[in-house]
């Protein structure tokens, strides 16, 4: 392992490739590629069957990923982009940089999936995570009326932050602004990204943090700590569905499609739960790992279709800014 990493570091600098096999370049978010993410296992499994070289390029988070692709335009080296969510796919499709996938797989999502450009590879619900000592509120309304403190992320810089914005919009519609005003005194602070908020929560800065229903599974499985739970809200929970798409300018359209299909294979999907800490888009043959069984199952899944999400975003952001700027 040590040697491999060292070698990777040395050879990456020269950009030389040992083989003449075709290269599939996949842009994704950083945490996918790190040694703790699904990247390494997926790379090994795909390379074992594709007679190609798979190259992951980490480019920040989901929003940064799209910005990066737009900066590069049609000259991009990317063949596949992995890790946008449905709140970003409308903007992504509008760029014209993506090509239809032409696949029709069976999916295990809480909602119907009809999108000829993007294919999901994992999903989870947004939720407020807390320690078991807290008796959590059972709805947004109860949360706003309580004195439970929360940490949230800024919708202008983070995908979970944007998810919360649309979650509230989907649950409250015209009353969303009033809800944000009521919630303002519960919010300890608004952070730039998920990492900051979650780590502040772990250091005890607030009772709850905006994260995912699947977050407690990390603590239960990796840390053997059952002390965390996600609060189930009566209004329902907004979904985050992470998708991949084929870049239209790819010089490897076949391999790009193979890779997107491979992401839904058992080999890839069985890696997802305990590396990305999300639900797999197709439940693997062996089922979900233990620890995922104890997670809350929301009664209602909320999700704006991509074009409505894009349309709702701006007005919702203005309301959010107004309510929290007072």
């Amino acid at each position: 392992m040590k040697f491999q990493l060292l070698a990777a570091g040395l050879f990456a600098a020269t950009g030389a490739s040992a083989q003449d096999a075709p290269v599939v370049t996949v842009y994704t978010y950083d945490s996918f590629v790190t040694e703790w993410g699904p990247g390494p296992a997926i790379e090994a499994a795909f390379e074992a069957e594709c007679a190609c070289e798979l190259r992951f390029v980490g480019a920040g988070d989901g929003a940064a990923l799209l910005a990066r692709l737009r900066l590069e335009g049609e000259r991009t080296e990317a063949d596949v982009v992995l890790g946008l969510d449905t709140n970003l796919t409308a903007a992504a499709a509008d760029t014209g940089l993506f090509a239809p996938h032409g696949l029709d797989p069976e999916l295990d999502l809480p909602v119907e999936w009809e999108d000829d450009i993007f294919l999901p590879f994992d999903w989870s619900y947004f939720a407020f995570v807390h320690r078991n000592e807290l008796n959590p509120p059972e709805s947004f309304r109860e949360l706003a009326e309580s004195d439970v403190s929360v940490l949230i992320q800024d919708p202008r810089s983070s995908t979970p932050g944007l998810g919360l914005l649309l979650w509230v919009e989907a649950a409250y519609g015209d009353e969303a602004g009033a809800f944000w005003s009521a919630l303002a005194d519960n919010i300890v602070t608004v952070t730039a990204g998920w990492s900051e908020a979650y780590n502040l929560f772990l250091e005890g800065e607030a009772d709850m943090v905006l994260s995912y229903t699947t977050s407690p599974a990390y603590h239960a499985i990796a840390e053997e700590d059952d002390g965390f739970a996600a609060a189930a809200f009566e209004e329902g929970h907004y979904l985050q569905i992470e998708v991949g798409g084929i870049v239209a300018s790819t010089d490897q359209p076949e391999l790009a499609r193979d890779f997107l299909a491979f992401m839904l294979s058992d080999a890839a999907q069985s890696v997802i739960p305990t590396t990305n800490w999300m639900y797999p888009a197709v439940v693997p043959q062996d089922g979900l790992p233990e620890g995922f069984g104890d997670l809350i199952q929301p009664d209602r899944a909320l999700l704006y279709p991509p074009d409505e999400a894009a349309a709702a975003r701006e007005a919702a952001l203005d309301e959010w800014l107004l309510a929290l700027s007072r």
Partner: protein
Amino acid sequence: MSRTALPGVAAATLVAALVAATLVAVALRAEAAAQFGPADWAAIRFTVLQAVLSAVLSVGLAIPVARALARRRFPGRRLLITLLGAPFVLPVIVAILGLLAVFGQNGLVNAALAGIGLPGIRIYGLTGVVLAHVFFNLPLAVRLILQGWVGIPAERFRLAASLGFGPSDVARLLERPMLREVVPGALLVVFLLCTTSFAVALTLGGGPRATTIELAIYQAFRFDFDLGRAALLGLAQVALTATAALVALRSAVPAAFGAGLGAPVARWDARTPLLRVQDTILVALAAAFLLTPLLLVVTRGAAGIVTLPASVWLAAGRSVAVALGSTALMLILALSIAAATLRLGRTPARLIEASGYLAVAVSPMVLGTGLFLLLFPVAGPADLALPVTMLVNAVMSLPFALRALVPALAEIERSYGRLASSLDMHGQARLRHLWLPRLRRPLGFAAGLAAALSMGDLGVVALFADPEHATLPLKLYDLMGAYRSDAAAAAAVLLLALSLGAFWIFDRGGRIDADL
């Protein structure tokens, strides 16, 4: 223009061109013309407000602390001075976690208040932003002002003592003129650092009220992909900096103490018991404020260092390489610019010095994106990640180096310039036999700062590097993003140790025979 001014003009032009080219590159990629909305104006107002408050408080508090450190000798003083610089070189999120361990909802202060039945404090908001900025910048301000104090030759204090000066006379005739020269620059540097602040404002600001220009730029890039607005906001930030830099440089008055022989300073004026107690309390308070959060960071993470994965150590190696490269580059740029300011007239000298400050003002986001746009057609971003990071960090640490070097070099020239010229010492000879030996202190300090800063930097590298080329701060974020907060805490301790170590080695090297 004399020959010695040429490299300096070239260096200043390089910095200015880097800033201008990146702004233009971003603006040219814009799809539509942009204009400011009310939210942008609010962001500009908040940025200026918090930066002014942070600068005034940091420098205001730094003056008495620096005075106390300048006129007292005690065991461990050097170590303390080095340690006091630590907050400045920490990655923001680590420092914030340390601060929150003291002042947060769950922190020491609130625990103590609850213990005696008092209501807790809540620092989120403008208070938290300014508190964090003072925490980051007080050490820098102390060091910059301390440089001014030790720059007063020992002979002047000796003369003062023989004339029977009390503390107030020393203050009037020696210290205040020195402060008139040093304080505007210190205010400027802190102000500039706070204008590009992003994560502090966003984490401790409590909400969108605390939106800075940098966050507006971030949003323009990442969520709206409105490059025109990003460039416009970036331009506003540069204009703000240029104005502040010109005001500050114009209000600095050279103190002109004349030459000394570099003997150790003895302070007869400060020997009263009252002053002793006062200084002791000041130093103790500053140390408590700056070191307690760091101590908590260390205790939180120290145990985990041995179990850090190999990739973190590799990233640490990369960070050290970047730090050394950018330090060397910074020294070349800073010395050239400082030399040129001596040779040019007042206005061109100010102009090229001001251009040295530009880089700290330009939004890291704009700089990074602009460089990305410029370099992407030529080479893969990940391949260039480390050289680009070196260059940007070198340029980013220029202002601190200039703050330390320009006044020091001016003083050397005022005192020894004519002698050197009469001995026909020019060019290389003057550099080697006059400047470098007498500049050791500020050079060591500047090199230490540059090394430490680029060790902890998480600006441009985040745009260019992917996890395989990650530096230590980037790795730390990866760990946090992978739920691994214990490993992240350990990586933070490693980073703190490397940054402080680099700072200590350079800074110590600069005063190996000196009495600072």
